[in-house]
């Protein structure tokens, strides 16, 4: 678990268009530049918003990733709600 690295990846991939384009072209090799676990790489490569949310990614970063991935707001919120339910968390 390396929440800092997960968040750093999102900050760079969403904030720097050139890095974001690199990620879009070849996500697997782009992710090798970060100290991530296999689970974290999979969640990022597949834009698994719910899993990233439960990992503790800051919501502002998470929403930026969703916007970059063209995940619309209702689907984004639904993913978080499903994650909360799966984790037994009250909203």
């Amino acid at each position: 678990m390396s929440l800092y690295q997960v968040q750093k990846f999102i900050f760079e991939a969403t904030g720097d268009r050139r890095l974001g384009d690199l990620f879009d072209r070849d996500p697997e090799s782009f992710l090798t530049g970060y100290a991530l676990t296999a689970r974290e790489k999979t969640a990022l490569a597949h834009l698994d918003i719910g899993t990233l949310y439960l990992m503790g990614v800051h919501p502002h970063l998470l929403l930026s990733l969703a916007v970059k991935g063209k995940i619309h707001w209702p689907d984004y919120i639904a993913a978080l709600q499903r994650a909360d339910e799966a984790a037994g968390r009250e909203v």
Partner: protein
Amino acid sequence: MPLVFAAAANHAPGITGRRYRAPEAEREPFFAAYAELKRKLDAARLDALVVIAADHFTNFFMNNMPAFCIGLADRYRGPVESSSLLKIEPTEVPGDQRLARAIAAGMMQEVDLSYSEELVFDHGVMVPLHLLTPDMILPVVPIFINCLTGPRAPAARCYELGRALRRATAGLPERIGVLGSGGLSHWPAVPASGRVNAAWDEEFLDAFLKNDRERLVAYRDDEIDAAGGPGGQEIRTWIAVAGAMEGRTSEKLIYLPIPAYAVGGCIAVGNLEKRAA
């Protein structure tokens, strides 16, 4: 000369991006209050506006997160968000490097600031500027307070930041105003988005309007998170404005929960000639 204008307001992206999703009964008084604030700002005939705002991972990350950062550039770009989301077209906002350096040098006599000549603006700055200075000809000096992740500067330090701003500008010839941008309670980008804690907002607003320093500096991060949500941490921008007013009171132009904007619509303007009791 002393600050000639002080105010604080929300900046939630829904204010411009989802303007017409709010019912007319909420939308009209809120935008009327913003228009009233614009009239007061125009009447102040400012040479520059200091905007104290919260960053949203637009400029800063946890690799080097400043508690306070002042912009020293001659121009800024914004917003970083797409125009389809924010309904604000990309534009250039004028800065004033010479004035910003003078303000920074004065403030650094009392507080530690980082500075940057590369800042870009997100909704935290662009939403209020879009509504208050739409022609983008008034030079802006941005000051960002870390409201995102802990450890953050405590409320008392934010109040001192404002005091330092007031002292730093007092000896300058320009007509300078200050605008705080952020808060109050809100839960951005989480399932609770749209929730507003009106009672907590009203309590904070009462302390702000009275410029009750003792109450303002008593706010703690865990209490803010629990009652005001993560977005509530942005009350730091208002607390800094209260510090900049050195005990002067403010007038509420509006407080009205607007769930469609995911925030309690709140705008206040300082009575710079009236001291708190």
